[in-house]
């Protein structure tokens, strides 16, 4: 019986020294001096015959080489649509991107020709999705799907590709990779399928990995395995990670910076520790107060956010959160707040709010959590 578990303390220490020795750390291919990714004023609309949905309403953020950024928000806040728009993966029939730019390594992805975009997608930027079963081709062996990526982008011949594929499966922790290459997706469990997706994504050593709810469909013990794998890969491969999730606990343990989205906008962005310690936007505070914490007491009442997210068929005039917000003023309802450095917060902390949460109310949150922070 070989070992069945592995101990990790602290969370981010699990880099395998042999992987570093084996030369798995890729050198940066960056050619420009700015951030690796720069998204500016991105807007996305979905237009059908009877209505228009304003899904993303001016999203801007940067991502540096090797950085991890978490994007959190509830269903419909535009977090997935943002990432799909970045890579030109939105359905052509209904989606419109009327404004914005997505500069990756100096090139605006929104204005690239399709053939150039195809070179970048899968090679420089890779993406993994929530449901590994529907993202894998059920009638193609895992090996074929893995070798397709490296043969297309890196021009490997069949033998090289097979070796590379086996090496990839090994790197994502799949036992007996040579045998597994001949198997089909249905022969893999959910966690193993997600590992295969990750193997495909890192096949060309991308500089940016976009992971859209990579662990949401998985059980919690399997989720822990996958998140640990992603953390280790970010370090060994030196890639940037954009992690999209609804789970505040997942970003807390994985990302250096976190952006909170609501109704198609980033309402707050900050280094993760800073965001959780000093949330400025009432929505962020509301989210933190509505999640039950394993380490808080039984009798701590949850403070839900009243109401439900707004219908996004009309353009915004004021703050989208104002109807549900206890801090809303007349100004919130009439003028749209933009992301600005938060007055009473640390470096890199920006919030889009006319009336950020006062210090006293944040302390109430800390009390609620049993003084943990």
């Amino acid at each position, binding site marked *: 019986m070989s070992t069945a578990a592995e101990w990790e303390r602290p969370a981010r220490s699990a880099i395998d020294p042999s992987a570093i020795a084996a030369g798995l750390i890729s050198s940066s291919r960056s050619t420009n001096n700015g951030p690796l990714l720069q998204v500016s004023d991105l807007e996305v609309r979905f237009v059908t015959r009877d209505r228009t949905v304003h899904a993303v309403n001016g999203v801007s953020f940067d991502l540096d080489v090797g950085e991890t950024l978490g994007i959190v928000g509830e269903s419909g806040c535009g977090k997935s649509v943002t990432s799909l728009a970045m890579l030109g993966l939105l359905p052509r029939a209904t989606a419109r991107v009327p404004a914005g730019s997505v500069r990756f390594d100096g090139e605006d992805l929104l204005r690239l020709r399709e053939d150039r975009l195809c070179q970048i997608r899968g090679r420089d930027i890779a993406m993994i999705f929530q449901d590994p079963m529907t993202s894998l081709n059920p009638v193609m062996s895992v090996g074929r799907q893995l070798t397709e990526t490296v043969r297309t982008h890196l021009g490997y011949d069949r033998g090289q590709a097979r070796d590379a594929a086996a090496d990839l499966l090994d790197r994502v922790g799949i036992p007996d990779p040579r045998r597994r290459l001949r198997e089909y997706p249905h022969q893999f469990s959910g966690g193993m399928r997600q590992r295969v997706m990750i193997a495909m994504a890192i096949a060309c050593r991308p500089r940016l990995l976009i992971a859209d709810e990579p662990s949401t469909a998985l059980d919690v*013990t399997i989720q*822990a395995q996958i998140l640990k794998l992603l953390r280790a890969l970010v370090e060994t491969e030196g890639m940037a990670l954009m992690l999209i999730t609804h789970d*505040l606990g997942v970003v*807390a*343990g994985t990302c250096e910076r976190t952006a909170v989205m609501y109704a198609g906008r980033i309402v707050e962005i900050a280094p993760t520790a800073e965001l959780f310690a000093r949330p400025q936007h009432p929505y962020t505070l509301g989210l933190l107060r509505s999640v039950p914490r394993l380490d808080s007491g039984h009798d701590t009442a949850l403070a839900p956010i009243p109401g439900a997210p707004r219908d996004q068929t009309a353009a915004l005039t004021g703050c989208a959160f104002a109807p549900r917000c206890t801090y809303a003023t007349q100004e919130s309802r009439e003028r749209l707040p933009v992301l600005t450095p938060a007055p009473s917060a640390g470096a890199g902390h920006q919030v889009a709010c006319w009336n950020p949460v006062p210090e006293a109310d944040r302390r109430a949150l800390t009390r609620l959590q049993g003084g943990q922070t």
Partner: protein
Amino acid sequence: MNAGPGDDLVTVEDLQVHFPIRSGVVVARQVGAVRAVDGVSFTIRRGETLGLVGESGSGKTTTGRALLRLVEPTGGRVTFDGIDVTAASAADLRRLRRRMQMVFQDPYSSLNPRRNVGNIVAEPLRVHEVASGRDLDRRVGELLDIVGLPPGASARYPHEFSGGQRQRIGLARAVALNPDLVVADEPVSALDVSIQAQILNLLRDLQGRLGLTYLFIAHDLAVVRHVADRIAVMYLGGLVEVSDAGELVTNPLHPYTRALLSAVPIPDPAVESSRERIILHGDMPSPAAPPPGCRFHTRCPWVQPERCADEVPALRPLASGHLAACHYAEQIAAGALAPHAAGTAAPVGAGARVPDRYDP
């Protein structure tokens, strides 16, 4: 157990639900069985919330359904307030079901889209002939009110409501007959966090007002910790640990519970960066071919060469009201046994050489 038998509303003894696996084209022959629930015993005390947690495939949903006989148990016994549910006739069962209700996970598929909300909530009252005419309308109005829906909701249809509001409709229907027991199967897992908190608070509020007993089935330990008085942890068809909720979280005795707790993300970077994590390798084995001995021994960080692989551990009391099914629970709690693998475990890059399916 420190409660007397009079305090127990539900007693489950050695419950088994096996689903046959059939093979053959003309004559289907049984070639095996999926042991979804395999010898589960627990009690639910009157007025408490018992949380039943486990990962997908652990058998928690099947246990909940077998309790109400929505699936037929293949063995064991369920007693509800002194009445043997497993032996009840169809007529007895019909009477019993007035007192035990269920709330489902998916608020989209558990409400009939062609009937208005008033009809949906009134149906149990009509079926069990407890109210009719004006009385029925008044009762429906009351029910919508206690779950926080406007009176006008009665004439509208499920598609006009959001997920959270639909779950309120499901709750109104479940409490319509003033049941003693409500089995809530993942009632908040399809909802966004801000809405989830509304429903959790409503569940607690209803329990206080109506004196309900809950069996709360969920995979999310943080949610279960928040609502449950006691927690039972399931793994691969069996219970591995039962304890008071606070005690379970602070002092878990079964290795699986420890791993499960350490895997739950906590929305606090300060805690996340410093906490100890036990990462299990591989997946849960198939319930059609569960490993012999302790079901968890194939993934257990503390697995021992003796007993674990060949002797099924009994769920035994280790402290007051705290039961666990592990041969070595005392030694592990005392720190006398070290988990395998600190430093020697296969690191991510090298690939873990542990079979992810148990192959006898």
